[in-house]
């Protein structure tokens, strides 16, 4: 047997050349890693308490403002995704930290409305109760009426609100004048107007129903009970209640006419179809700064009081709004400092003034709204509308550990898109919510 030696030497030399850089880089990587381990944990000065804060990229500015105004506390900030879009980032981290008994953030911001119920549940047991003296009653009472309901689980307050997302009725004042319409004050008027628009001005819309959060825009203000926590671990889910069916009767004709679009408002196809064609749209306060620029000409955007059902007092819903939590695992001086950080970030104008969302803390509202007004985007005065709507959010839509929006978005919205009537989808919506509730250990009741 012969062994051909010809190809081998060249091959080996090339092979060595390929591997040497890798080995060098690997050595560099390992030694850098060793150095990182060898550096001792940052030696915090004994006098200054250290508070770890987790925020999303938008709140970074607020934390930095805190640091500037409060040099007596050392803040270690980590930027993460804000627990947005149901990512469960916080739940994952906290659950792992619970296993090893360390690593929790002292103060954390979350965009996810359900987090109060989820994190306060026995499985995660993360946030500190705030209404037991940790945060003063004066401060707690300084939030707009009813807004802390989104932070209240089983009667205890577990977080502070950063901002609100109260629903109002947005409209294009130039178009309304051009078409000769008056701004409706009730849902029935809005629907009638929508039907008129569908025949007289096809292609223009009075609202959207293609998003995963539309249940908050249409069902919540109607006091439809789909996640009403009536007592500890007991939830009322009843989608055949007249409060719910009147909504589907209201919306189905409009979807058929095209006055209510099934396009998701944040997608490109919506932009292409409806730029300058949005006559009206019920939606949260943050639509003003985050959705409408570009879709509604500057200076034409007006906000009116949320629609009411007939002569009943108006209630509205909410789509989002941020939450600030404090860990229950902090003690001593760090606990005091963390409470102070928490309070400052959610109430001090130094923080709320630069927040892009409507402040939940009443004292900051007027100034913030004035700042928004100055952008020239709006044709009406936002302040009275926003402030009033902030107090009208119906408290029967409770924070729960499962995501109602996820169910609406993944099963109802696609079916609406496939031309199924909303009325026929309500029962399965309710039954899925029931499944989720029971899977999370809640008892489901169906109150008439």
């Amino acid at each position: 047997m012969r062994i051909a030696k010809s190809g081998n030497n060249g091959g080996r030399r090339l092979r060595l050349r390929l591997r040497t850089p890798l080995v060098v880089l690997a050595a560099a990587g390992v030694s850098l890693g060793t150095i990182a381990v060898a550096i001792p944990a940052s030696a915090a000065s004994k006098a200054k308490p250290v508070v770890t804060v987790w925020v999303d990229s938008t709140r970074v500015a607020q934390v930095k403002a805190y640091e500037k105004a409060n040099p007596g506390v050392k803040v270690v900030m980590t930027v993460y995704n804000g627990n947005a879009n149901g990512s469960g980032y916080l739940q994952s981290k906290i659950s792992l930290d619970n296993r090893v008994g360390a690593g929790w953030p002292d103060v954390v911001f979350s965009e996810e409305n359900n987090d109060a119920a989820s994190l306060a549940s026995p499985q995660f047991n993360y946030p500190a109760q705030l209404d037991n003296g940790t945060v003063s009653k004066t401060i707690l009472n300084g939030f707009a009426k009813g807004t802390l309901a989104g932070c209240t689980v089983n009667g205890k307050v577990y977080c502070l609100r950063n901002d609100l997302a109260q629903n109002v009725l947005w409209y294009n004042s130039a178009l309304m004048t051009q078409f000769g319409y008056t701004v409706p004050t009730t849902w029935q008027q809005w629907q009638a107007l929508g039907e008129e628009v569908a025949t007289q001005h096809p292609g223009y819309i009075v609202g959207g129903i293609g998003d995963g959060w539309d249940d908050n825009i249409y069902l919540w203000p109607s006091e439809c009970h789909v996640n009403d926590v009536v007592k500890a671990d007991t939830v009322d889910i009843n989608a055949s209640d007249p409060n719910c069916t009147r909504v589907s009767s209201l919306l189905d004709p409009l979807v058929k006419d095209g006055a209510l679009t099934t396009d998701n408002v944040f997608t490109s196809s919506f932009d292409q179809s409806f730029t300058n064609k949005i006559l009206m749209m019920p939606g949260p306060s943050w639509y003003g700064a985050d959705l409408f620029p570009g879709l509604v000409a500057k200076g034409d955007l007006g906000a009116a009081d949320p629609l009411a059902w007939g002569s009943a007092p108006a209630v509205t819903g909410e789509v989002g709004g941020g939450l600030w939590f404090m860990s229950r695992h902090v003690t001593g001086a760090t606990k005091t400092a963390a409470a102070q950080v928490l309070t400052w970030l959610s109430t001090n104008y130094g923080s709320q003034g630069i927040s892009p969302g409507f402040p939940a803390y009443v004292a900051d509202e007027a100034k913030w709204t004035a700042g928004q007004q100055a952008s020239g985007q709006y044709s009406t005065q936002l302040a009275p509308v926003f402030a009033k709507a902030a107090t009208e959010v119906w408290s029967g839509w409770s924070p729960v550990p499962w995501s109602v929006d996820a169910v609406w978005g993944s099963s109802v919205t696609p079916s609406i898109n496939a031309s199924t009537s909303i009325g026929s989808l309500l029962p399965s919506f309710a039954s899925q919510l029931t499944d989720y509730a029971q899977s999370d250990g809640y008892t489901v009741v169906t109150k008439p």
Partner: protein
Amino acid sequence: MKIFNRLWTKTLGFIVLLAFTAFFIVPVIWLLLAPTKTDHQLIFGNPFSFGSFHNLAHAIRVTFTYQDYALLTWVKNSAIYSFGGIAIALVASIPAGYALAFTNFIGRRTLLGITLFVMIMPATALVLPLFLEANAVHAIGSPISVILPFSFFPFGVYLSYIFYSSSVPRDLLNAARIDGCNEWNVFRKIALPLARPVVALVAFFAFVANWNNFFLPFVMLPSNSNYPLPIGLQDLLSSTPAFNPGIGGDVPILRPELAVATIVAMAPVLIVFLFAQRSLVSGMLAGATKE
């Protein structure tokens, strides 16, 4: 008739290749063109239009300066973790594959079986135990908590095993043994040089797996300065209004900027691929043995 058949087969083959080329490459072309357009142009313009160099420069600048050049930190971290992982993975996997193919030790098949078993186990279930292990040695937050698990690369062991067992004849190695080589030299002087294609393949796949791994760094690394690219990209995504509508603020990350970050994440993988491709040559064993 035969010539017609050949022509027909060749034309069909050509069309099929072209169709698949389009399938694979069209989204990538879109991606490469995206940073040259504004967010508005992405929505209202033609998908294949070229925007302007001005837009491109703006998008690149915004993406790189985001959060104090976070993108560069992510790239640096990813490189450290990936290359660290590959180096150890190669040292462990190639000899292991060789041994599984050529040395008949007790437990050889069991080892192959266990390796396959562990490869098939869903990673979701392994996250917690890995975290607990790392925590037990106080490695949470250190690059080693990521690099060491990365170097466990059973896929590479199998690549090496299958390569050796199907492409390298035993005679070759036996000849070396007869000539007096000890086992180590047989491996080092004969088997290893022949394995250049598979070393390149294993290194490449190990690199890609490490570079794109989200789960492990997510669990092991709590602070921003340690984030690799996949976690950084998630962060960027959640700072983009199109993917996180409530995000608000003056956050300048729009879709063109996201496209820049995506391209930055892609590029090193492709560069490593080009290097690895060079080793996928044919006929290494031509004339090596004679039956």
